Every structure is written in C-alpha cells, then in structure tokens.
C-alpha cells in the first residue's frame, strides 16, 4: 500500500473507532454523574451503582439470564458436537439438506423464531414461564456450536485416529482417548459462544418468557423504554465492562492457542 493510501485509511479507521466508542464513553461518564436528570455534569457519585446492587428485580433478572444460558449451553453443546461429528465423519443421503437446515438458525430473523414459538405454545395452551425461553435459545445456538466444532474437527490430522485404531483401540476408546481431547478446545469455544449468545439474546426471551420472569436484556429493554436514567447508565456500564473483560480474556486465550498450534506445526 502506498503511504498516502495508508494515511487516508488510518484516519478513516480512527473515525470508525470513535464512532464505536464515543457513545459508549458517554454512557460510562454519565453513570458517575451526580445529577438525576439529563446530561449536564454536576459532580461525581457512586450512588447509582449502590442502588443497582440493592435492586432485587435486577438481581433476579441476572440469575434468570444465567440459568437460561447455562441450560442452553449444556444442551446446545452436546447436540451441536454430536451433529458436527456426524457431518465430519460420514457421507449420507440428505447431507446437503441437513447442512442447509443448520444454516437456517444462523440467518433466520430472531423475531420469526420468537413469534413461531409463541404461536406453538399458544396452540398447545402452554403457560409461559422461565423454561419456555430455553427451546428457542437452544435452537439458535446449536448451529454455532456445530460450526465451531466442525472447524476444529477439519483442522486436526485424522491419521491420529487411524493410528489409535491400528493399535487396537475400539471406536469408543478412540473417541474418548484421541478425538475428544483433540476437539475439546473447539467444544469449549462452541460452548462459550452458545453461552454468550444466550446471555445476550433479547427478542426470543421477550416473546417466550412468562410474565414476571425477566432476563437481563428484557429488563434493560423495559428500563430503556422509560428513558434516560442514571441507573440504566450504571447498569450499561457494568455490562460493557463485563464484555470488555470477556473479549480480552477470550482474545488472549485464542491468541495463545494459535501460537501453540503454530509451534506444533
């Protein structure tokens, strides 16, 4: 690239980063603002964080989110991993259709999944509660787990499995002693992805949760609808900081993993 092109691209990208981060920065700044109203700085306070930790609704919603995310992650990880093994190992009739089916949750608008589930629950006269959000959460996360595990399966040397078999291991032993340890990082990455997507999911929860059982995003929605408030600033700040930590930790681990792989090669 020529120096001038590079300079233009650099300035442009800097603007994009500012576009990303300036709004977030204002949320963080105003979460420490003494004034209850508006966006004029009047002084520093931690009051809003204090009132958040006493907010029982918020604590309940956070626990609900974690509950749904954990159950979703367990189911989606097991189902997605099994599917990835099938798609990696075998050719079979209908494979193309199965692959197409797994791409649907990746691209389908979440509102369609949400209202379709709501309609089915209505048809079956089911009362909505906390657990009614789980089927939808699992349905949209299975594919991500499958794709991540499949990528891992395709990247390792299948001669290792053949070697185990030549040495007399049966299929079961080969899986648990060779395949599973090798794809374990992929399974963990898939599980983490499922967990994060579930924790972040709003639309499906909004439609399929029963009254009174909120998740964190649903609670944030109802708070934001009421307008700008210092509590929402504080809550958003906490969510943003948690995301920064997760992204940095995952990013660093992935880099480490990549480096290890490169060394092995």
């Amino acid at each position, binding site marked *: 690239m020529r120096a001038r092109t590079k300079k233009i691209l650099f300035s442009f990208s800097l603007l*994009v980063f500012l576009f990303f981060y300036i709004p977030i920065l*204002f949320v963080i700044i105003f979460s420490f603002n003494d004034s209850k109203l508006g966006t004029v700085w009047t002084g520093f306070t931690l009051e809003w964080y204090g009132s958040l930790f006493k907010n029982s609704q918020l604590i309940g919603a956070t626990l609900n989110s974690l509950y749904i995310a954990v159950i979703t992650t367990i189911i989606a990880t097991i189902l997605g991993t*099994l599917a990835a093994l099938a798609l990696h190992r075998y050719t079979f009739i209908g494979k193309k259709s199965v692959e197409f089916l797994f791409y649907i949750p990746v691209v389908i608008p979440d*509102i*369609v999944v949400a209202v379709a589930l709501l*309609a089915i629950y209505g048809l079956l006269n089911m009362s909505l509660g906390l657990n009614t959000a789980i089927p939808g959460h699992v349905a949209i996360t299975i594919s991500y787990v*499958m794709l991540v595990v499949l990528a891992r399966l395709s990247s390792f040397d299948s001669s290792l499995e053949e070697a185990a078999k030549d040495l007399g291991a049966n299929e079961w032993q080969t899986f648990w002693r060779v395949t599973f340890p090798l794809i374990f990082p992929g399974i963990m990455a898939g599980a983490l992805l499922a967990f994060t997507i579930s924790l972040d999911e709003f639309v499906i929860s909004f439609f399929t949760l029963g009254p009174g059982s909120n998740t964190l995003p649903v609670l944030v929605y109802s708070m*934001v609808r009421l307008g700008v408030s210092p509590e929402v600033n504080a809550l958003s700040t906490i*969510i943003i900081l948690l995301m920064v930590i997760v992204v940095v930790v995952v990013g660093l681990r992935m880099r480490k993993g990549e480096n290890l792989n490169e060394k092995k090669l």
Partner: protein
Amino acid sequence: MRKSFKKAYLLLSPSLFWLTLFLVVPVIFIAVISFTTNGDFGAIIYKFSTKAYASAFSSLYAKVIWQSIWWALVATIVCLIVAYPFAYFIAHAGKWKNLLLLLVMVPFWTNLLVRLYSWIILMNNKGVINNVLMDLGIIKEPLALLYSPGGVIIGLVYGFLPFMILPIYSSIEQLDKTFLEASEDLGARPIKTFLNVTLPLTFPGILAGFIITFVPAISVFVVTDLFTGGKLLMVGNVIRDAFLVEMNWQLGAALSLLLMVLVLLSLMLFMRFTNRKDRKLLT
C-alpha cells in the same frame, strides 16, 4: 469419510429432533396461521383466507414494508461503505491486527439495547449533541434527531456494522497475497489491482456481510421502538404488535413469513454464488 447412514443419523437425531420441533414445525405452523381467518378476540378460525396478505400489502402496511426495506438497505449500504476500508485497514495493520480486532469485538458483543441506549443519551432532545449545538448557538430549539429516519438509520448502522466488518475482514485476511504480487509484477497500478483482483476475490465476504447485516436490520423492532417510541415503524414493530397487542396473529404470521421468504431467497442466492469454504463467513 465413511458411508454410514445409520450412525450419521444416530448422531444427528438429537439436534434434528430439536430443530424440527422448535424451529421447523413452529415456522410451518406460522405459515398455516397466515392463511387462516381471524375470529373475535384473536381466535384462530381454521378457514382458508388470504386476508392477512391482502392486509399486509394494503396501503397502511405496504408503506411500513417499503420503509423497512429502504431503511435496512440504506443502513446496509452505509455499513458496507464504512466496513470495507475499515476491514482493509485492520487486515493490513500487521502486529496491531489482533488488538484492533479486539476493539471491534467489544461493541460486537455488547448488548444491542445497551448500544442503542448510548445513542439515546447522545441524540435525545436534552442529549449531548443538542446541548452542545445549543451552547454554541448554532440552533435555538433542540433537533428531533432520534425521531427521524436519519436517527433510525444511525441506530441500524451502529447496531449492525460489526456484522459487516467481520466477514469482510476474514475474506481480506484470507486473500492469497501472491495474486496481488502477480498483478503488481504484471504492471497493474494499485487501483487496478484493487478493482480487478482484491474486490472480486473478497466478494464472498461482501455478500455474507450484506446478508447478515440486512436480515437483522430489516427485522429489528427495538431501534424504531426505543428511538421514536413507536412513531416510526418497521416490519418488526408491526409483527410484535400484531401478536402481543392487536391479537391479529394472521397478519403477524403473514409478515413473518414474508421476512422468512426474503431470508431464504438471499441464503439460496449466497449458496449459489459461493463455495463451501466461503460459507464459514456467515458465522
């Protein structure tokens, strides 16, 4: 790869069962509902009717549909114009690449509602932008930034820009550099190399980015909902209200199905123009 129909489906059966029961069947049910008759108090009368579709294309809702398509399209194109040079820069940033990518991942993973809220702080009538403009004496009355189509498009772009950046970044990153060198060695100017080599080779990334940005952008209801309090509508708002407020499931189902058809068409188009390797770009 082995041929074993039985073992393959044994491993696949739990996920196929789940996806069928909680995705395929509900969507088919929605398709059925969209052709039924709307009874009193939202009752579903199983008598064939195309009234829901007639109503979806009536002047009232057709306007919302076109408006949604238009706003989502403008937002997606803005995303593309912003994302391509940005992704190109990151992909060529050498040792800074990973750090810059992390900086994109933070907004990508922060909840959409939180990110939209940050723009409400900036753009509402007593918000930062209006305050600054009024203090500088540029305007006397606060501008209704949030309640305009422009505000909605900013919300859509801010919400879904990372979806466009990541696949384009991957496709630029995976680009075989020897093609670029070959083009250069053969005497092509940088702009020509870019237009004739880089752009066509990264086209799958652009296509993937276009789909995964356009789909959420056209179906989202929280942007119009939170920015304009329901004064401006997109398809998502109508679907939500049809199901939760007006109890007109037929209309909501018909609109959902139209969205679904749009998405499946774009997915088939994508699969037609790309190979297996490119499909990873969708995720």
